[in-house]
């Protein structure tokens, strides 16, 4: 059989770019407004990415579309209206992951700050594995509150890593080195004020640790290579990221939370030596007052959620209609 089809001539940059996009990237992508630049057109590429959030307890699903712009650009020669340069599919994929990482980091940064607020009362001591990496801070605050003041030399002898973490507490103003010799690490009025509010050593230590993490999480991770806190942050970010997107606290199974972490942190490998069982992470996050059990499901804390919900307005997303 032979038949004739009338097709649109590829004689404008928008159409040329869209033809390329559909053939090479897919219908999720789209050309943005072409820019006139000397002898060529530059057409930035955007992409719509769908994201589903499910509240398993109420069996409610909401589908959101993220609109990520400028993930690549197609250069079209004016004289021939042909493509001179266009990103590869792999490059488009990398740009999408990068844009998603930016959104994820916004949630992660805000969550870390919220967890560090003393009013939220996170019990960091319950995060056993994280404690192993942050022992210098735990021990130092404990000693200071028991009025056991170590000398600078003593701390230096334990190791540089120890002194580096102590320096973070000093930077926050909760401890200081005396000027007389031998120089000693002593508590400041700020630490004693915190102690008088908290009224016990454990809670004061937790509060200082929270503030250290809130202020120096990325320095701890990148400069000091203390990664033990990462699985906890990733699990909580994945939960609260979805809850913020959904607009209210959701209840999900442990299995879904694990899958969410994998999806949420796609393209961001976990540092080595910090892969361990999700049931343990979740139990400890519940003990630390970051998450909560809701029967067989996991849910979040209202105090944390209400501090994060404003982030929702900054997400480049629209909600899809579901059901026609």
């Amino acid at each position: 059989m032979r038949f004739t089809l009338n097709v649109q001539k590829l004689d404008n940059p928008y159409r040329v770019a869209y033809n390329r996009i559909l053939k090479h990237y897919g219908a999720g992508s789209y050309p943005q407004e072409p820019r006139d630049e000397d002898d060529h057109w530059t057409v930035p590429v955007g992409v719509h990415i769908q994201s589903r959030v499910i509240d398993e307890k109420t069996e409610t699903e909401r589908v959101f579309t993220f609109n990520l712009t400028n993930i690549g650009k197609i250069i079209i020669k004016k004289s021939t209206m042909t493509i001179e340069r266009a990103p590869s599919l792999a490059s488009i994929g990398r740009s999408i992951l990068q844009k998603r990482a930016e959104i994820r980091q916004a949630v992660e940064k805000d969550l870390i700050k919220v967890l560090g607020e003393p009013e939220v009362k996170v019990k960091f001591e319950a995060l056993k594995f994280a404690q192993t990496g942050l022992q210098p801070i735990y021990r130092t605050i404990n000693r200071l509150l028991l009025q056991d003041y170590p000398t600078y030399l003593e701390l230096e002898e334990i190791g540089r890593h120890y002194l580096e973490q102590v320096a973070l507490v000093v930077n926050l103003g909760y401890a200081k080195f005396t000027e007389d010799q031998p120089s000693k690490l002593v508590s400041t009025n700020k630490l004693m004020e915190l102690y008088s509010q908290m009224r016990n050593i454990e809670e004061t230590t937790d509060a200082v640790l929270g503030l250290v993490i809130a202020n120096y999480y990325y320095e701890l991770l990148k400069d000091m290579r203390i990664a033990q806190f990462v699985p906890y942050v990733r699990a909580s970010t994945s939960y609260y990221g979805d809850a913020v997107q959904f607009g209210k606290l959701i209840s999900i199974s442990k299995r879904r939370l694990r899958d969410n972490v994998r999806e949420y942190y796609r393209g961001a490998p976990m540092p080595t030596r910090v892969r361990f069982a999700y049931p343990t992470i979740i139990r400890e996050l519940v003990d630390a007052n970051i998450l909560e059990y809701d029967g067989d499901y996991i849910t979040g804390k209202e105090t944390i959620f209400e501090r994060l919900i404003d982030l929702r307005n900054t997400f480049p997303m629209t909600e899809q209609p579901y059901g026609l």
Partner: protein
Amino acid sequence: MIDLPKKISATGNDCLVASVLMVCMYWRKSRQSPRWNIADNLDDQEWDKVYQKGLGYVKMSGMPTNNIKWFLNTLNFPLDSRLELVEDTRQLTNLLSLNIPPIVIYDRDYLIRSVHGIGHAVVLVDKTEEMFVSIDPSLHPKYVYKLPKTDFEEAWKFKQNATVIIYPKSYKIRHREIPSTTLQKWM
């Protein structure tokens, strides 16, 4: 009306794979030929495997239409595929009259809410004076969705009238290129 012998449910970026497979199944049933190397029974597990294989061609930004060609080639189906930015809905009517079910990519968000969104693929199976009848993989178990013609035209135009045509290799398509009416704007 074209009768698609089996409907496949899909969400998100998988709508194009589901549409492609539904059209392949249609051709399998309507064009009996020894060149088919897959079961005539559409409930056979082989078809499930084909669908799963198709999902492997879906990327984060959707399924590139070039991948449909490669997908059909790896399956050795006696079918070919093309992406066409067709002139208007008359071309769709022509295809339907030739019993070729076109897969159209349109902006469903725009059709429903006047907000731009992801390109959505559906198979057209019929047309009336005012409607196009589509089989929409995302609408399990109903599948049939009638698209008001004028609204559809507008939403489809945002995707440059993109149409994927899957047809037997023995068919020959000739093109007549229609220049853009807004050519002046780009000179």
